[in-house]
């Protein structure tokens, strides 16, 4: 995990509010379709899974295909009923896992 993910979500919310979350992980998302100068296929290397959990419970999961553009961007929502921590996980084809956490205060 060379690159740091970028997260954007509110720090505070009202109970029961639906908040918007934006995430971006810098990543090449090599599709496996491209060829190098010698005509050899460049092997696929993408983030194939993205997971968002809140206090350990699943909120949003995305299974990604090579058709997702480089630097996979995800925008989704979460309904918050209590203060807690969002955990974000990106899984690379080679098994590398990148995680990030962000907490939110719910009043």
């Amino acid at each position, binding site marked *: 995990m060379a690159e740091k993910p970028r997260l954007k979500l509110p720090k505070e919310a009202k109970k029961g509010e639906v908040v918007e979350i934006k995430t971006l992980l810098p990543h090449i998302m090599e599709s496996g379709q491209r060829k190098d100068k010698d005509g050899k296929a460049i092997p696929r290397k993408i983030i194939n899974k993205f997971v968002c959990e809140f206090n350990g419970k699943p909120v949003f999961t*995305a299974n990604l295909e090579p058709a997702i553009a480089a630097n996979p961007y995800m*925008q989704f929502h979460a309904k918050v009923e209590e203060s807690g921590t969002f955990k974000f996980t990106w899984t690379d084809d080679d098994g590398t896992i990148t995680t990030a956490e962000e907490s939110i205060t719910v009043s």
Partner: protein
Amino acid sequence: MRQLSRRDAMALGVVGAAVTFFGPREQASAAAKEAADQITKFTGGKTATSGKVSIELPEIAENGNTVPLSVSVDSPMTADNYVSEVLVVADGNPNPGVATFQFSPLSGKAEASTRMRLATTQNIIAVAKTSKGEFFTNQKLVKVTIGGCGG
């Protein structure tokens, strides 16, 4: 000529040379068939009802390398009635799969946005599955000026 055979190879995986005889139309229909197969697999053979799903896309994508996509499904998103999964396929890409989004009642809204690559002008199809086992679908055409695959 080189351009064409490379595209064919992309669309059909290995076959390559033999397929060069058929034009872009043949490869497009092959991709469309694979897209339809993925949808059938997703719904388990059930027919998806048209509606409830909305797809936001630019009408014309100038750069196929990064095309903004937003999918939303009309659903109350309560514990006993929510959208559990949404499959997005592109019927003109070498691999039609784009992404599968899984939602939960904690999602609040069945809505997700991302950015995708598109090889050519094609249809984007989204199929939503609800917790009650219903399927809804919608599709939208996007015109792509410069393709975003291979290169």
